[in-house]
């Protein structure tokens, strides 16, 4: 991270993951913190755009760390098929 990036909050592209099977920032296409609590329109967190790169990286790290330990529930698989087959062959660990 450069001094300019730290000062302006402009984050450089995340580095590639270190090795296969490692969950890291580079695998995150998008991250929106918090709940979407409004009932009329989609909300986007905007203050994260102005965070320093270090703070932004910490946000990513916290979410990724949480994801590694949370139990998984897979939803919605049947919705991409025209039948009512509820089989979840994508079920995870």
């Amino acid at each position, binding site marked *: 991270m450069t001094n300019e990036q730290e000062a302006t909050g402009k984050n450089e592209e995340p580095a590639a993951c270190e090795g296969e099977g490692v969950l890291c920032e580079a*695998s995150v296409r998008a991250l929106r913190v918090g*709940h*979407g*609590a*409004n009932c009329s*329109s989609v909300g986007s967190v*905007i203050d994260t755009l102005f965070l320093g790169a270090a703070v932004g990286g910490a946000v990513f790290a916290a979410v990724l760390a949480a994801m590694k330990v949370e139990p998984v*529930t897979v939803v*919605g*698989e049947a919705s991409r098929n025209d039948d009512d087959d509820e089989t979840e062959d994508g079920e995870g660990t």
Partner: protein
Amino acid sequence: MIVRYEPWGAWVKAETTPALVALDRDGVRALGLDGGRAWREGAEAKASPPIEVHLAVTSRCAAGCEGCYLDAHPDGVEPPAETIERAFDALAKAGVFTVAFGGGEPTLRDDLGELARAARARGLSPVVTTSGLGLGARKLEQLRAFAQVNVSYDGASEAYESVRGFDGAAAAEAAITKLAGTGVVVGVNVVLTSGTFDRTKETIRRAASLGATEVQLLRYKPQGRARALDYLAKRLSPEQARGVGPLLRELAAEHEGRVRIRIDCALVPFLSADPDLASRPSELARWGVLGCEAGDLLASTRVDGRVAPCSFTAPTDLHVEQLAKGWAGEPGLAQYRVYSSSPAEPCASCTLRTVCKGGCKVVSEYANGGIGPDPECPRVREHAVSLAEAGAAE
């Protein structure tokens, strides 16, 4: 953690650190998961169902806000709990993550807490928006069942009244205080109008002092009772629209780490006037900034169960109980997705195109009678001026 596989990877809703994450396939595999049939060849052919649905649990409301986008009334309809629970079943089957209770005024329902728990039991995250009017101990207890509660709060008395036509600021402020005091995660919805825009910082300071931890800024939209000539006076001026980016920068600096600042989908076009933000589309996308997601990541349902692309658009013939099967093929939804994926100029050449997705279609439909470039977007305004000048010169 809830995971929904997509052809490109998966949407993930983290619970302990609340967040919505789009992970690529490598990231999903790193969690020990595999997308199965969603990752097989040809899976991209169908549009994925929404991840967020706004559910009208009543059309009753006694507040009488001048700009109510649903034109709610005291004698509105309140669907039975069984009907709403069937909607929850359908949302869960489709893979929806978040159900946002709206109305009407949701707290007028006596079974609101039970409904929130019913949503949770199906794996949905229930959130709700309320005016805060008449929020007694019993309703407060019901609201504890929600992941987050947002209170409509447009500012202190004068500002509030200028938006809604009555002064409900004290009730909203009391609601924020009570909710925060009982440990409920509470945010505020702040509608930006020409009359309140200059007081936004003051409004947010006040909300934060009362315990709000999140602010959602909303663009005033021409729908329901706001679909009138009065809209033209209440919408943000061109100068104010250009000032949204700088305002957000100031708000973020002032409230960093204490209050989360959010904007709604319809404010995203205004970021095009901010040279810094307009030059960072990949960062906006990476931080989950969403423009018009109507009929895509977002849907809305009316009290009669009909599904609409968003809360401000006309409902389609699709019923929520058919959401999973009917989502991809419903033409009233598809037209929004199609336009968002390839908007006309000047949106087509805008750096923010993939984030903004052509701006607010509700505004373009109001102004021009159909889906098209958002006429209040600063870039669209400049484009229109350029065309007019070129035409005059010929």
